[in-house]
């Protein structure tokens, strides 16, 4: 707990530094939150809080506990232990009230494939008991927002994966929620579809909607999130803004060197002196350093001849590798 509080203070200090208001309006607060399925602990006592208007990310590999956390926050799954408050209410007691003000984009689209795009939106709006006319107006606005105006009468089954995903997001917005939870919004989409989706999420943020996103894509987390936590095996292993995390857990630059498959480990031993840290992956060696070009030159100076090499900026991928010793997407 103490560790978590320290982390919290750390974060608010940096927020003030970036000119954000110091008064906190916390939309989601979790204290030692747990989710157990029988003996299996999916979420193991995590602490985090999400502020109004920010994009908050959960980054981690499959099975890290992200989805279980999202399901608890969306009041779909009962809390097994600890405390959780969503929009100032407790999910186990006030599920329907919370869900009235919350939009969920689940990992599976859960769309009715046999109905049209427009009908899917319309019916979802009616689950909230919104008046018919109001829902119809919102449907047209959301079709435009989701770039689906021309597909309104199409059966959902005929849509591409990216379109279905955008429709699911539009559906989550029909009740004009204050908080939107997106569980892996872009998994399985091609790059173009992902960028279009990211753009829509930016717009939502600009409108003041609080977004909570899970992802196992580093670039997504870096692009979208104001703050994020890194989850692994049910626990939060690090928290902060993408920049803070990279500064804390990695170096400014990374030099990647590829040797033959069996030669990476041997080369890494000789490279140990050249960088702040060296990681050996099955297919390459990573040198963590503030000057990647310099490290690369030094490596060549040692007489090493990598088959390929590149210098890049550190990313959250490196943070994850450092924290868990594993790469994120296997």
């Amino acid at each position, binding site marked *: 707990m103490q560790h978590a509080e320290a982390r919290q203070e750390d974060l608010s200090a940096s927020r003030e530094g970036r000119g954000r208001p110091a008064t906190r309006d916390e939309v989601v607060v979790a204290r030692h939150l747990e989710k157990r399925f029988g003996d299996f602990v999916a979420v193991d006592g995590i602490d985090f809080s999400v502020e109004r208007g920010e994009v908050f990310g959960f980054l981690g590999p499959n099975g890290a506990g992200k989805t279980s956390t999202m399901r608890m926050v969306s009041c*779909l799954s009962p809390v097994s232990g600890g405390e959780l408050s969503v929009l100032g209410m407790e999910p186990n007691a006030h599920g329907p009230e919370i869900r009235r003000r919350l939009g969920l984009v*689940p990992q599976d689209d*859960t769309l*009715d494939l046999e109905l049209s795009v427009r009908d899917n939106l319309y019916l979802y709006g009616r*689950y*909230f008991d*919104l008046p018919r006319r109001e829902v119809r107006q919102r449907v047209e606005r959301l079709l435009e927002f989701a770039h689906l105006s021309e597909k309104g009468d199409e059966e959902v089954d005929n849509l591409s994966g990216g379109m279905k995903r955008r429709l699911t997001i539009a559906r989550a917005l029909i009740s004009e929620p204050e908080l939107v939870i997106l569980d892996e919004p872009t998994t399985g989409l091609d790059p173009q579809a992902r960028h279009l989706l990211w753009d829509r999420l930016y717009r939502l943020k600009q409108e003041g909607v609080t977004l909570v996103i899970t992802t196992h894509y580093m670039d997504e987390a870096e692009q979208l999130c104001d703050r994020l936590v890194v989850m692994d095996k049910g626990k939060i292993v690090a928290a902060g803004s993408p920049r803070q995390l990279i500064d804390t857990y990695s170096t400014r630059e990374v030099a990647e060197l590829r040797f033959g498959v069996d030669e990476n480990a041997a080369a890494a031993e000789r490279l140990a002196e050249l960088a702040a840290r060296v990681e050996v992956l099955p297919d390459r060696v990573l040198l963590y350093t503030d000057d990647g070009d310099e490290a690369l030159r030094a490596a060549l100076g040692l007489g090493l001849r990598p088959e390929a090499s590149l210098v890049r900026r550190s990313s959250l991928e490196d943070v994850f590798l450092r924290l868990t010793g594993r790469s994120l997407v296997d």
Partner: protein
Amino acid sequence: MGALAAPRPSLLRPGWLRPYRYFAFRYKRTWRGTVTSSILYPILYLLAMGLGLGHLVNSHLHAVDQTGRLGGVGYVQFLAPGLLVASAMQWGTNESMYPVMGGLKWLKTYHALLATPVRVRDLVSGHLAWVATRVGGASALFLAVLAVFGDVPSPLGVLAVLVAVLTGLAFAGPVAAFTATQENDAALPVLYRLGTVPLFLFSGTFFPIAQLPGWLQVVARATPLYHGVALSRALVLGRVSAPAALAHASYLVAMATLGAWAARRTFTRRLVV
């Protein structure tokens, strides 16, 4: 945002209405087919049974049994009110098998519903309310066809639609509860073959259960279909005994209530994890 907050459920906007609207909307896609079969099905049965089997049965009864084991009515008049309720059982059962599995697993539309203010109990009530509507509509058509053929001698027969709805619910609840415990649809055809079909044949629809061996009569009396058939027949033929009618109706109400309760339990166990 949130200029127009979604209202809370109330007496005028009960929670079950939300999923109900969805089921009703979906039905718009298939209603023509179901209406056609609701009319065609009784006509086909009445023709086959009336012109074919019924003729044989009637002449046989006339020869061997002047008082009439069927209560002194022709075979078709005996059969028709039973067939109405037996069909209601099938409609109720069907609506709670594949559509429920679809909502839980294939289309996952139940999961979408539960991400909104809809609660599991609203979902179950909405489903059952929808089944009641479907069975009610189909039974009303069925009864109208029977009336046209002159097989509804008593005005009390109108109430047989209610009996059909109750019977449909007495099956829809337990079957939905069962479906929600299943990982896939493998057991559903088995349930149909070993549950629905024997009940259809042995619950007094086609012949009085007095024809059955003693122990099977006991089994038949324990099932909801027997009570539905007996009550429907009494109403349609205008031979109602109040205590018997009350007993039949109570049984059906109890079964429907128990089924709804069980469905709420198994749906919760399946969906709230």
